[in-house]
Each structure stands twice: as C-alpha cells, then as structure tokens.
C-alpha cells in the first residue's frame, strides 16, 4: 500500500436515497404533507431545497467543489396562508439537513429591529442578529422596515445591517422575510440589494374552500372537537360567504370562526343542560353554533363593529 492510499479515501459513489433517509428530512417533509393542507407550490419548493442541500452534502463528502448555497428566502402571500407556520418548519428542516447549527426560529417585526432615536437601531438589530445566529431569523411584515415617506426613518439603518450580515454570515443564519405580495414587491423594488440576496421567492397561494373546510376540521381535531354532519355543511356555506366579505384572512378567519363557535357551543350547553353532559356532547360543534354568526344573519364578518 502506498502512502497516498493510506489517506482516507473519498467515497466514489453515494446513495442519495440512503442519505435522504438518514438525514431525517423525509420525516419532516412527510409531516409537512400531513399537517399542512394545500400549499402545493410551497411544498414543491421545500422539496427542491431539501434535494439541493442533500446533493451539496454528497458533493462535499466526495470532495467535489461546493459552495454554501444561499438560502435566504422571502415568503409572500395573503394573510393567513401559513407563512409563519412554514417558517418554523423551515428552521427544523434546515437543522436536520445540517445547514444551520441550532435550528431555532427567532421571529421579529419592525419594532424589534428599528430603534426610536439616533444610535438605537444598530445595537437593537445586532442584538436580534446575535440571538438568531445558528438558526433562522423570521422578519414578519418586512416591508414596514422601509418607509419611503420618511427619509430620516431609522429602518434604512436596520436594512443595511441586515444586508451586511446576510452577505457575510451566510453559514451562520438564514433570513426569511414575509409579507403580503404587493407590498413586498414594492419593498424589493426600492431595496434592490435585498432582492438579489434572496435566492428563494416563495409565493403562498390562497386556500380554496375545500381546503379551508379540511383545515377547520384539522384545527378542531387538535382541540378534541368535531363537527357533526349538519355543522360540516353549514361550515362549508360559512366559508363560501365569508370569502366574499371584507378582511378575509384564509385560515386565520377560520380559526376565529371556530373560536366563536366554541364559545357559542359552551353557552348552548350551559343554558340548555339539564342533567349530566356526555363527553361526546362536549366535543361536538352543531350547525346552530355556526349559523347564528353575523356572516349569515347580517352578511358581515363577526369581527366588524
């Protein structure tokens, strides 16, 4: 055996399938499929990113040239389409793929980054960045960082620090920006530096009515409630109507509707109960709990004044 051969040989072939199984990503993606309803383009994109990271890892193991891929992302979509939920899953996926070291999610908004007086912004932003090191920094409603109407706004300072860290510390953290599509577009066009540093622009589509119904059932199941047949049909009509009304926020509207339905159910049980109540009764939402909503009676959302 020559000296060259005693150096640990690089593998010449890697079973990507086995690599994929071993990383535990299959599990996370399957979980994502199971627990998140709809969102096809998002899931597809996550799969692509996972594949890229596994291939990168294989290339690294074989000694081929590899460059840490940029994984900063922007999530755009209407309210309630699951941006925050996916971001927290993202942290987990990246952690399992070994892309980030700790895999925690630090979720911030403008208030956490931008200070109130001169010299306040930089330490505040740096503090947040320090906390996010080794994990994922999620900036919700990122377009608020930039206020074009006020040229002395401190948001610009936060943006500059962010850009610098996104460029220099690519190995240390992943930044995810989230916000409504139209305003994010405006934000990116006024900050071209951001657009070019973000590799993945993922658009979250609205849910269709069937998906919203499935979501409502999943939400209830999590809290040990269920809809009876009639209630399911009423819920379907509720979703139909609610969509036409102002301030419709996809899954968030559904969650609020269900919270109110639970309130009404409790009240109904309380006022009508004579004698003991069964567990089944306690966990069933009936049509009447939904149909008294103002969405049906007055044609306005319950939240309106």
């Amino acid at each position, binding site marked *: 055996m020559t000296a060259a051969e005693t150096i640990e040989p690089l593998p010449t072939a890697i079973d990507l399938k086995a690599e994929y199984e071993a990383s535990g990503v299959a599990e996370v993606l399957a979980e994502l499929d199971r627990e998140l309803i709809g969102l096809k383009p998002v899931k597809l994109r996550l799969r692509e990113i996972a594949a890229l990271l596994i291939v990168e890892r294989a290339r690294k193991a074989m000694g081929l040239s590899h460059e840490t891929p940029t994984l900063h992302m922007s999530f755009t979509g209407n309210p309630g389409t699951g941006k925050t939920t996916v971001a927290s899953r993202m942290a987990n996926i990246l952690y399992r793929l070994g892309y980030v070291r700790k895999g925690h999610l630090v979720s911030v908004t403008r208030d956490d980054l931008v200070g109130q007086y001169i010299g306040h912004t930089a*330490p505040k932003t*740096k503090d947040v960045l*320090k*906390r996010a*090191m*080794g994990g994922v920094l999620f900036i919700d409603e990122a377009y608020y960082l930039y206020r074009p109407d006020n040229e002395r706004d401190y948001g610009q300072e936060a943006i500059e620090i962010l850009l610098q860290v996104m460029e220099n510390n690519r190995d*240390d953290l992943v930044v995810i920006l989230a916000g409504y599509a139209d305003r994010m577009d405006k934000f990116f066009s006024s900050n071209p530096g951001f657009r070019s540093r973000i590799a993945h622009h993922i658009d979250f589509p609205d849910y269709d009515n069937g998906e919203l119904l499935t979501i409502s059932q999943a939400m209830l199941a999590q809290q040990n409630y269920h809809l009876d047949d009639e209630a399911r049909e009423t819920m379907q009509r509720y979703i139909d109507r609610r969509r036409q009304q102002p301030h419709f926020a996809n899954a968030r509207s559904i969650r609020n509707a269900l919270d109110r339905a639970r309130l009404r159910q409790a009240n109904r049980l309380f006022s009508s109960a004579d004698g003991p109540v069964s567990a089944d009764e306690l966990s069933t939402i009936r049509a009447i709990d939904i149909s008294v909503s103002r969405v049906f009676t007055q044609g306005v959302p319950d939240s309106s004044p």
Partner: protein
Amino acid sequence: MRITQGCFSFLPDLDDQQINAQVEYCLRNGWAIGIEHTDDPHPRNTYWEMWGNPMFDLRDAKGVMMELDECRKANPEHYIRINAFDDTRGWETVRMSFIVNRPKVEAKIAMTRTDIRGRSQHYSWSTSR
C-alpha cells in the same frame, strides 16, 4: 509577566476555535455570557469594564464571537475576559471566566513590603507597564 486569572490561564492562549468551543459549552449549560475588558489586571481589580450587556438569550457561540471581535478591535491592548453567569437558584454566580485577549506587552505586578509594628510586614501589589 504572564497574568494568570480564571480558567486556562496556565495554558497557551486559546485560539478562536477553542474559545468558540468553550462558549458553546457555556451556552449548552444555559449560562449567560458577558464580555469584560480592562487595562489594569491587578488581582484586586474585580470589576472590569463591561462590553455591552451580558448576553442572556443566545443559542449559538457565533453571537459572542462577533462581540468579541468588536471588543478586540476597539481595545487591542486590553485584557479581555469572557464570564459565564449561571442564574439557577442557589448558584446565581459566575461559573466560568477566562481571558481571551492580552496586550502584546503584559503588565508587571510588583510587590512592596512595608514594615509595621514590631517585625510584622504588610505586603501590597501594584501593576505597572
């Protein structure tokens, strides 16, 4: 004269990778990291200047290393130490402290003997460059 205070001070200076590993150990134990610096390493000089606030909610050593780099840049000729504070009840104290930066020319510590009553002596130390 080599100043020996805190952990590892009889060992060769830690490099950044080793400091990083020590900080990871501290964070894993849930200790808060503080960076302090001084130009006077007198043993009785317990309270050094703080470099920013102690960092209570870090998950990764990278945040500390960034601060340390900045502190080094601002005070290259100071002693800099990293303190790890344990806030669990009953401890509530610094659990680990080590020097991470020394000036090129270290301070000297000189001892002075003073005669007092009878043949007793008092000892005192002073630092000088």
